[in-house]
Every structure is written in C-alpha cells, then in structure tokens.
C-alpha cells in the first residue's frame, strides 16, 4: 500500500509492481494493492505499508520480530493508564498518544483557555448590563411592587417575577446566540481553506459538536440567573409602607 503522494510521484497504480529496497540492500518486487491518503501530505509522500510477514522475510528476521505495535483505543483518555499497564506487564517501552503529542496538546490548551477567557469576560459584561437594567426597572416599578405586596403578594412572589424576567432575557439571548453561532459556523464552514500540507481539507474545519452548544447555553442561563438574582432579592425586600406613605 502506497501513500497517495508517493504513488503519484512514481506514477504507480493499483495492480502494478514496484521494486522495494531495504536499508540492508535486499530487493523485492511487490504488487501495489492499494493507495491511501492520511490527510497529511508530507506523510503520504514517504510512507508505504506491507504485510508484516512480507516485511519480516524481506528483512530476514524471524516471525517474532516486531519493532512497533500501534494500538488505537475507542477512548483516547485511557491511553496513559493502558501504556503503563502494557509496559509493566510485557517489559516494553510504551508511549501514549498524549505524551507523544504533548506539544500539540499544550498549543490547543492555550488556545482553548484564551477563547474561554474571552467568552467569560463577555458574559460578565453582559451580566452587568442585565443587572443594571433590572436595577433601574425596580426603581421605576417601586409603586407596582408596593401594591403587589399590599394586595397579598409575598416577597418571594416578587422575587420570582424579577427572576423570571431575567431568565426570559437569558433564554431569548441564549437561543438567539445558538442560532447566530450555528449560522456563523455554517458560513465559516463554507469558506475555502486550502493548504498543501492538508490535501483533504478544502474549507475551514468546523466542529458542530453539541457539547459546545450546551456549554454556551448553560453559561448564558447561569449568567442571567446570577445577574437577575441580586436585583430580584432587592425587589423582594421593598417595604410597601415606605413607598405608600411616601406619597
């Protein structure tokens, strides 16, 4: 099996034979059974695979000769533990995917931290906005709060009204944010993104995972709830006698 870049360079197609030379000088004619594309152009230009038996024969080694075994897990997070377990049990060197890609991981962690930090700052700003609006509204509605209390609505009823108001803002904002986010994702998904290193990527890579939508909505609701809670508590503590007698 040849990488696509390699096959193109050699103008080899499926069914044809290519001559393989090992580092020790052994030669063999092997038939091309398939062409693969990993998505990374540099790897596709140099890599090729053959049956393990063929390679062992080619290198003149016994059938117990293996240099590397790559294990792919359903859950990547289990890799470090499993690596240690395998190393201990068979006395081999085991390298888990996280350690092997530590540099890449750090890079994407830093990017994640930056984007979440920006998100949190925006939410705090929006939260203060809602807090201010509700505070002003309570001053405007003191009369209404006083009469509601005089006619038998309790402090917790009043608090519920204002919390409900802020949750309506939160839900409306959250839903429109989700729709806006999805639309933007769609637009970005269609912007061409062509690079020689990644031949299979034609547009910006987009992750539509619902996880991010859930995080966004959760934080939007949490922010509005907190921003609404303080003014709502203040409204619930309004003393109707002060308002009514003050007239």
């Amino acid at each position, binding site marked *: 099996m040849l990488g696509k870049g390699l096959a193109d360079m050699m103008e080899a197609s499926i069914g044809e034979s290519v001559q393989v030379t090992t580092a020790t000088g052994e030669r063999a004619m092997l038939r091309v059974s398939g062409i693969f594309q990993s998505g990374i152009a540099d790897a596709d230009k140099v890599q090729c695979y053959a049956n393990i038996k063929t390679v062992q024969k080619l290198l003149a080694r016994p059938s117990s000769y293996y240099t590397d075994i790559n294990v792919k897990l359903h859950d990547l997070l289990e890799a470090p533990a499993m690596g240690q377990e395998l190393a201990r049990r068979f006395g081999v060197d085991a390298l888990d995917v996280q350690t092997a890609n530590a540099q890449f991981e750090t890079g994407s962690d830093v990017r994640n931290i930056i984007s979440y930090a920006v998100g949190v700052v925006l939410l705090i700003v929006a939260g203060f906005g809602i807090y201010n609006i509700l505070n002003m509204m309570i001053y405007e509605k003191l009369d209404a709060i006083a009469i509601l*209390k005089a006619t038998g*609505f309790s402090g917790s009823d009043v608090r519920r009204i204002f919390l409900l108001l802020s949750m309506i803002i939160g839900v409306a904002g959250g839903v429109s944010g989700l729709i806006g986010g999805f639309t933007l994702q769609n637009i970005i998904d269609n912007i061409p993104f062509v690079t020689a290193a990644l031949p299979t990527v034609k547009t910006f890579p987009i992750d539509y995972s619902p996880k991010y939508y859930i995080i966004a909505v959760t934080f939007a609701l949490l922010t509005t709830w907190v921003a609404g809670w303080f003014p709502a508590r203040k409204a619930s503590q309004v*003393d109707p006698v002060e308002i009514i007698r003050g007239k």
Partner: protein
Amino acid sequence: MSATSNILEVVKVNKSFHDPVTVPVLKDVSMAVKRGEFVSVTGKSGCGKSTLLYILSTMDTDYEGQVIIDNEPTFGLTGERLSQIRNEKIGFVFQFHYLLSEFSVLKNVMLPGLKLAKRSAAEIEARAMDLLKDLQVKDQALKMANQLSGGQKQRVAIARSMINDPMIIMGDEPTGNLDKKNSEIVFDIFQKIASEHKRSLLVVTHDNDFAARTDRTIVMDDGRIVTS
C-alpha cells in the same frame, strides 16, 4: 362564624420611630372593629393615625403589642403568612390609586384574586365585572389603567380591594385626592359595602364631613386614642 363579632382587635400597641432619635408614635393603643362596622380614624397630621393603619394592615411589623385579625393573632407571624392574610382578609384603598399601568382595568381588579387562586380565572373575571358594574366603571374595563380619570381610578382601586371579598377594607385617605363629587361617590360605595355586604371598613381621613357620617369615629391625638 367567629367567637366574637370583632373582625379586628388591637391590644396595647406601642410603636416608636428610632431614626434619628427615638420618638414614641403610638402609646398603648387598643381598639376593635366589629363586623359590618364603618369606622373612621381622624386626628391632626402626625398623630399616628396612618402609622396605626399600616400596623393593622400587617405591612408594618415593627411594633409591640398584638393585632388580632379574624381571631388570628398576627404578631410574629412569617411574612409569607401575613401576605396570605392581606390577600384574603384585607382590602386596601390608598390616597393614590396604585393601579398597574401595564394592565387593563379588568386585569388590575383580578390580580389579587388570581393570587389567592381559590376560584377559576373565569369566575374571578365574572366577579370583577360585577364589581366594576356596581361601581359604574364597567364600560372602562378593557381600557388601560392610565387612561382613566382620577375618580374612576379610585373606584377601580375599590373594586380591586373587594375582589377576594375581604373581612375588612382599610383606607388611607381614600378621598384625599378626589373632588367633592367623587368623594361623595366613594363614601356612598363604602357605606353600601358596610350595610349591604356586611364588611367592616376602617378609613383614615382628615375630612371631618366624611368622618362625621361614618358609624363611629376614632379620634387620635399624639399617639393615643382620645375618643372612640
């Protein structure tokens, strides 16, 4: 029917304002209001008559003594329970109407009934319409509250105070903002509530003509009841 015919009983209520210095406002005030009685409270301004009313209304809880509403002592009850008592047993009419301008007249009247939730919304609406009809503002029912004249607003406020058929209706200068003609209308309505519906009324007023025509007038001076 209750053990006594007193709807409202006040036993030795004392209250002081503490800011900036301690000033006693009410001194050993005791009184009672019977079922179906129309009582007015008068006195010079600053004599404590409004303060007394707000203690009776259960909205002011910072006092010593006991207020018994419909045989239930209210001193020390939770805010939640006091709200229920206000909702179910007391109606209020203030000098200012306090209608919610976001709602129609009908909704304003229905609001305390919807809170009590003893009857369905349709029944409350029917009762609200009846009350508005009694008070001759039925044709205004679907207008917004801020589109009415002062006298009409006050009549709507009275309808609101009656929606839950309370034991007692309390008024703080209910005619204070009204002209002679509208005051007259409000007085007649109150008298009708007392005589026909057998509800008690306790109205604080500085209008001596108004007070003279009620069943009983309580005169206060400097935090004490002078005549009752």
